[in-house]
């Protein structure tokens, strides 16, 4: 994504509404977005330019030019141009397709329609034609086209609701309110057209939660903040219409500014490969220099005497100049050590691996019909080297569905299912559900398995009834009932939604509310409660209460909140119940459930009256109002009676704890970066087994200033450092990170992270964090997520992987070496920015441990073999140089040189690179530490490179000198001479092809039919082409191009030639076999062992696989985390968010409840805020 750099210069933005001429003076970005790189005309030049910027391509171009100089040319031009054109064409086609899709998506977005107020009329315009300063009208469920200043809306008080999932990943609705002066404009087009306010505000930036500006209109100034902004990427919800003034457009919107720069991601192998290619290049030059010096000396000592037979065209050429020319000639001949087909082959392999990922049925999520997708084809082998995983929480680890799972009422738990013998039964999909058909207002998606609770309800046990009555009364949810009985709740927090839905199903249906009343249907009967006060939630109180008067006139206070808080405020008579409930809470928490305690209190009329007076007084207080109110709340929430507790399951995605455990065993560190609250994040940490009770310490960093953070961090560092020293005493020899027996966890808050990420503290942060088994960062912004990833990338030089599902994860996904998007959850932002996408977190295990490991293994084997092969192939020329007067004479036929890499030896190694499996998928998953070699970079590194090139050098030496020895005096069996150049060439070439074929056979662990076909086929093709090119027919057509006529026939019918080939092959191969055998026998690697085991079990036949089950061992009480913000109570009691009951369903006749959501309909209850209709 291109950033508009003019924004860097902009210091202040002036926007005048409805005045395009004025706004155009500043040349703000328009609302067109452009992510494509080329157009039809620029494609060829730009693409070629880009391609020739790549070192390899430029190198081959230079070679090609060199080859056109006859004095230098030791090979015909076609040996280079054929592969080069092939490479360029393949890359160009790929780039063109990519760009075509970018064009298409840009086009699609740019041509979306929006209603713009132009010349006093609302007109439909394409998004790209929207300008800064335009007023546009949005309708319900539309995407916001640009960053807007909210002017007016259909709702009272200029309120409107937006969903910001695309921006920050939070799924709860947010309220935006227009200025009163502008909300008075309403939907009066004439008035809006006359609106000429001027906004002066900050320049474009990427801060999603901040906006400062002023609106000047009619000589008045109004201050503007983020609460009045609708950002691009949001969706308008529950608001019939609204009008907004475009402040930032297109690339300058906060969404686009937050995208982060798209960097071209390259794998570490890529980088290593480039270094190695440079080294090889250096080596090539060295060889060239040696041979050139040799040539100079030869020309002086021998060549000048040989003049009679071998003259230069120009007699002026001296030995030194000849050496210089020879240098270039040798560069051309030896260039095959840097094979052009290397890059193409690597691309092909990666493409193949990507397809295997796309095709994997085990990464296909049938419920959403989403297969895994490798969106980039360049990173596959890096999947086998990941050391750090950065994961988002909501939607990635969790399903973002809250489910009422269990409860404890008056000391009795409900929710577990027992069989006839009294044993607890695991709840599965098949467990029968409780039948709620007695209740016509039930929510059909609600599932509960324990029928005893319904029986208790039917028996009208008073406390059970009171329990659900509390749940139905004490909340800030807005109901919507479009048709009779079709209730939809709009909750800011999914927890509340789950609780009220539970109450609804158990017969306490919250049906409607006004600012003063709440109407319940209790077991089918309408009961209206007077709502006297809402004692709202905030972070300190960690509880909320309502005070209601029931139809009988009794005053009741209902309260729900964190158990620790509530238990302190109970009536002393409740102590016994408190203990039992406390035990139950422990039990729930142990299962990873989010708990909440419930209590009630009967209020005395007089006491309440007095309190109410104080409350009214306090609420009008000018200073310290919050504290005064808090104290008052505290006063009345005393001496409550415990009712019980609820347990909500923040449903993890399937297999998350198992996956995390498995990945941890593979020595991958998993960090959770979430925008959620500390409590929520910790809760999830416990339920996915990342945090455990047996951990030594869980550090929580939540300082607000630099100093505090520093202290907290260094304190931790100090203490953990002490432990580290201790452990080092025990085992000082091994890597310290592994010797730490003590386990730590670090949880760091967003604002602390902001400080910790500053230059002074980041080193400490990295040190501390890396000592910890688990790191959780909560309340972090999208950009901070990226910064954390960046930090680890910089300090640890480890491969990082970021996984997320929302737009708030985009920057992190783009920053990490590998970005993975969870598809099918909240929009597509993350997926579009990602390199890989799939539907479930648990597929990550397979992606890394199976596909990643295989890819890495294959790629490394491929590279080793490739370098070996090319060294063996090319260096024969080097040795020959010493015997042919350093004249750059090739050993082989030109055609052989042209075809060797692209025809004779490409397919077997490609087949190996595509299909090889050292260990099959079951074993890869069963032994996660097979992943270790990838992280340690063991399979291909500089040392490996040296060994395989050395092997290549030795092979070339043998390949040259055994035929040399044999051909010194050899003649054919009919006496004719055979030690001619062409026979020599054919013998060495044939030996080479056979040797490298045997070698690939040794390197192939997994011989599929394709491998067989390619290996044997390559040999067959070699001989076929050999005989074809040495045939009479082709010679008579092109006598100059195929001078090897008859050589194959005349040499390969000689026994001696075959004896030479056999000897050469054995001498080249057997040492390698011996070395490999010894290595595997004496120092077997993990892989060797598993392979043996695999072979042994294969012989025995398949065995039952033992599945790894992860038991959750946490006994931590999960504190109740209201996921919503404070202040909704006030909105309700003031009635601001209640709609005047006039307009309603008629405007939306075709309104479907789940429209715009991805089908997670139970989640949609929590996500959608809709109008109350009455």
């Amino acid at each position: 994504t291109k950033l508009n750099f003019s924004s860097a210069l902009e210091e202040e933005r002036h926007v005048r509404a409805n005045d395009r001429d004025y706004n155009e003076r500043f040349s703000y970005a328009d609302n067109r977005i452009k992510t494509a790189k080329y157009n039809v005309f620029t494609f060829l030049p730009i693409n070629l330019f880009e391609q020739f910027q790549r070192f390899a391509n430029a190198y081959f171009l230079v070679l090609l030019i060199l080859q056109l100089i006859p004095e230098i040319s030791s090979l015909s031009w076609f040996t280079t141009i054929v592969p080069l054109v092939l490479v360029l064409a393949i890359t160009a086609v790929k780039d063109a397709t990519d760009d075509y899709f970018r064009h298409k998506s840009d086009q699609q977005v740019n041509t979306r329609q929006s209603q713009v107020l132009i010349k006093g009329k609302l007109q439909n315009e394409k998004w790209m034609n929207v300008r800064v300063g335009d007023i546009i009208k949005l309708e319900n469920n539309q995407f916001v086209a640009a960053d807007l200043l909210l002017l007016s809306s259909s709702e009272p008080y200029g309120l409107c609701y937006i969903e910001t999932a695309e921006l920050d990943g939070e799924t709860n609705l947010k309220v935006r309110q227009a200025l009163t002066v502008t909300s008075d404009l309403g939907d009066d087009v004439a008035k809006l057209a006359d609106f000429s306010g001027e906004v002066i505000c900050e320049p474009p930036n990427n801060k999603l939660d901040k906006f400062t500006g002023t609106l000047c209109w009619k000589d008045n100034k109004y201050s503007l903040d983020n609460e009045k902004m609708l950002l691009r990427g949001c969706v308008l919800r529950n608001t019939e219409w609204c009008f907004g003034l475009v402040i930032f457009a297109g690339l300058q919107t906060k969404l686009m500014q937050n995208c982060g720069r798209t960097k071209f991601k390259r794998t570490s192998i890529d980088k290593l490969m480039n270094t190695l290619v440079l080294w090889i290049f250096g080596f090539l030059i060295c060889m060239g220099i040696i041979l050139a010096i040799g040539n100079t000396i030869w020309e002086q000592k021998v060549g000048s005497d040989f003049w009679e037979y071998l003259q230069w065209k120009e007699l002026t050429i001296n030995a030194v100049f000849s050496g210089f020319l020879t240098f270039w000639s040798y560069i051309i001949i030896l260039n095959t050590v840097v094979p052009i087909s290397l890059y193409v082959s690597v691309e092909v392999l990666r493409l193949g691996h990507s397809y295997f990922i796309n095709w994997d049925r085990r990464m296909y999520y049938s419920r959403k019909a989403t297969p895994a997708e490798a969106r980039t084809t360049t990173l596959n082998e890096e999947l086998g080297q990941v050391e750090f995983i950065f994961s988002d929480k909501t939607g990635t680890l969790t399903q973002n569905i809250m489910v009422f799972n269990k409860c404890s009422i008056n000391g009795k738990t409900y929710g577990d299912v027992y069989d006839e013998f009294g044993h607890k039964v695991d709840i599965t999909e098949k467990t029968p559900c409780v039948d709620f058909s007695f209740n016509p207002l039930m929510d059909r998606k609600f599932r509960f398995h324990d029928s005893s609770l319904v029986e208790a309800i039917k028996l009208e046990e008073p406390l059970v009834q009171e329990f659900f009555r509390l749940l139905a009364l004490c909340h800030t949810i807005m109901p919507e009932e479009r048709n009779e009985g079709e209730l939809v709740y709009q909750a800011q927090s999914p927890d509340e939604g789950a609780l009220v839905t539970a109450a609804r199903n158990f017969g306490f249906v919250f049906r409607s509310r006004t600012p003063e009343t709440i109407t319940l249907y209790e077991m089918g009967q309408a009961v209206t409660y007077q709502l006297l006060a809402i004692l709202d939630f905030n972070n300190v109180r960690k509880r909320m209460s309502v005070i209601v008067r029931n139809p009988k006139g009794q005053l009741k206070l209902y309260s729900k909140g964190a158990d620790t808080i509530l238990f302190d405020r109970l009536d002393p008579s409740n102590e016994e119940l408190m203990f039992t409930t406390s035990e139950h809470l422990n039990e729930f928490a142990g299962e990873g459930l989010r708990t909440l305690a419930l209590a009630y209190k009967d209020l005395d009329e007089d006491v309440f009256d007095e309190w109410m007076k104080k409350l009214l007084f306090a609420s009008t207080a000018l200073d310290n109002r919050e504290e005064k109110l808090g104290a008052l709340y505290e006063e009345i929430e005393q001496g409550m009676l415990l009712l019980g507790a609820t347990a909500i399951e923040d449903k993890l995605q399937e297999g998350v704890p198992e996956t995390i455990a498995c990945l941890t065993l593979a020595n991958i560190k998993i960090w959770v970066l979430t925008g959620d609250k500390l409590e929520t994040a910790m809760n999830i940490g416990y339920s996915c087994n990342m945090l455990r009770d047996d951990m030594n310490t869980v550090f929580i960093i939540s300082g607000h200033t630099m100093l505090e953070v520093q202290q907290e961090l260094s304190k931790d560092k100090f203490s953990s450092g002490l432990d580290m020293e201790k452990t080092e005493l025990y085992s000082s020899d091994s890597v310290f990170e592994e010797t730490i027996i003590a386990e730590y966890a670090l949880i760091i808050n967003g604002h602390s992270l902001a400080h910790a990420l500053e230059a002074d503290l980041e080193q400490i942060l990295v040190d501390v964090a890396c000592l910890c088994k688990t790191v959780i960062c909560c309340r972090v912004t999208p950009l901070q997520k990226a910064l954390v990833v960046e930090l680890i990338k910089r300090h640890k030089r480890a491969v990082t992987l970021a996984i997320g599902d929302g737009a708030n994860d985009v920057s992190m996904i783009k920053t990490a070496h590998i970005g993975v998007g969870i598809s099918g959850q909240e929009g597509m932002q993350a997926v579009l920015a990602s390199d890989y996408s799939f539907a479930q977190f648990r597929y990550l295990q397979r992606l890394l441990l199976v596909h990643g490991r295989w890819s890495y293994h294959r790629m490394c084997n491929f590279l080793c073999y490739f370098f070996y092969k090319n060294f063996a192939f090319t260096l024969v020329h080097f040795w020959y140089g010493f015997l042919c007067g350093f004249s750059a004479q090739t050993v082989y036929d030109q055609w052989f040189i042209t075809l060797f890499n692209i025809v004779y030896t490409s397919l077997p190694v490609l087949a190996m690179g595509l299909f090889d499996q050292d260990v099959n998928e079951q074993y890869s998953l069963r032994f996660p530490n097979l992943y270790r070699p990838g992280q340690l970079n063991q399979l291909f590194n500089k040392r490996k490179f040296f060994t395989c090139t050395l092997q290549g050098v030795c092979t070339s030496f043998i390949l040259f000198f055994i035929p040399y020895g044999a051909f010194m005096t050899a003649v054919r069996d009919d006496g004719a001479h055979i030690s001619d150049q062409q026979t020599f060439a054919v013998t060495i070439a044939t030996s080479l092809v056979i040797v490298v074929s045997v070698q690939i056979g040794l390197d192939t662990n997994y011989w599929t039919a394709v491998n067989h076909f390619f290996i044997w086929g390559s040999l067959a093709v070699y001989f076929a082409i050999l005989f074809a090119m040495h045939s009479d027919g082709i010679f008579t057509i092109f006598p100059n191009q195929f001078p090897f006529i008859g050589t194959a026939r005349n040499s390969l019918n000689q026994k001696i030639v075959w004896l030479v080939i056999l000897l050469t092959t054995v001498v080249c191969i057997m040492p390698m076999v011996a070395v490999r055998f010894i290595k595997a026998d004496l120092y077997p690697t993990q892989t060797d062992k598993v392979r043996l085991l695999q072979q042994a079990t294969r012989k025995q036949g398949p065995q039952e696989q033992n599945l790894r089950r992860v038991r959750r061992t946490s006994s931590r009480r999960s504190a109740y985390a209201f996921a919503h913000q404070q202040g909704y109570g006030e909105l309700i009691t003031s009635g601001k968010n209640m709609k005047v009951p006039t307009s309603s369903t008629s405007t939306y006749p075709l309104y479907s409840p789940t429209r715009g959501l991805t089908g997670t309909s139970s989640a949609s209850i929590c996500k959608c805020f809709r109008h109350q209709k009455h």
Partner: protein
Amino acid sequence: MMASSYSAKEEDGHHSGSAGLGGTAIRTRKPDNTAFKQQRLPAWQPILTAGTVLPAFFIIGLIFIPIGIGLFVTSNNIKEFEIDYTGTDMSSPCFNCSQSFSWNSTTPCRCVLFFSLDQPFESNVFMYYGLSNFYQNHRRYVKSRDDSQLNGDERSLKEPSKECEPYRTNENKPIAPCGAIANSMFNDTLDLFYIDPNGTQTQIPFIKKGIAWWTDKHVKFRNPSSSNPNLTAVFIDTAKPVNWRKPVYELDTDPENNGFINEDFIVWMRTAALPTFRKLYRIIQKKNNMTPTLPRGNYSLEVTYNYPVRSFEGRKRMILSTISWMGGKNPFLGIAYITVGSICFFLGVVLLFIHHKYGNRNNSSDIPN
């Protein structure tokens, strides 16, 4: 890239709404369950274990050693006689010829060398000339030829390839055959005489056809306009190579062995791979089973010394050799086979020892996790 997602989301919403669509989508998007796509292709998975590696070493050892012995014995049974006639030594009969060489001299210099064979050469004897330190494999040398011309192409005859420079034209006439290789063709004449114990010299009859590869003689080399038997006319507008004493159409009197298809010429044109090489010169056919082709005794080699090698310290040799199924005398291969076979066998023993002593045969049990 970013913004395109909005629409995608909307579309998703619609999709989930319509059940029928969803059903077909499932079928189309689910990857096929084929062994190939699921990477479950049946495969042979060999592992280098003691059971496979050790026998391989022993088998190779056991095969190679006999082959080596066979080769060695065969090679030793081949009779070969070599004589250097370069004439660098003062004592050598060819000393004068080698010293007083000039390309322009009209009278050929002759010298005679005497030698004796200790053993009779049975069967056919092949006579080679050997050159040392002669870089027939130098790049500029190797490419300095025009295969089209040699193949009888009329156009190339008139206008030889640029590769032939500087032996392309002479006095504005195209050289035929052009190029450095042809120009430097070996042109010594060797004659062999058997000296009876009574002193009579009998010339040994040579066969000079059949010394080149069949494909070279019949496919690769052809005279221009082969229908025209008059080679003089065919080559009328061409010049002879600078160093040649006579033009290409006078190489032999036999029309089947003249011009480009002269076998001495063809043999020369097949450039050697190494700077020391031998090329077949003549064949001495076995007469009958009773008498050896070359009986024991004294011989004289009469050399018409035309080919200068002194400037680059080259050597010229004449070689007489018999032939076996594996070609000429070649001790290298036999020794190499015996050595490699022994080493393999020995390695097998060593590996067996190491494996038994230190190898961990049951090491799959201690895999962590």
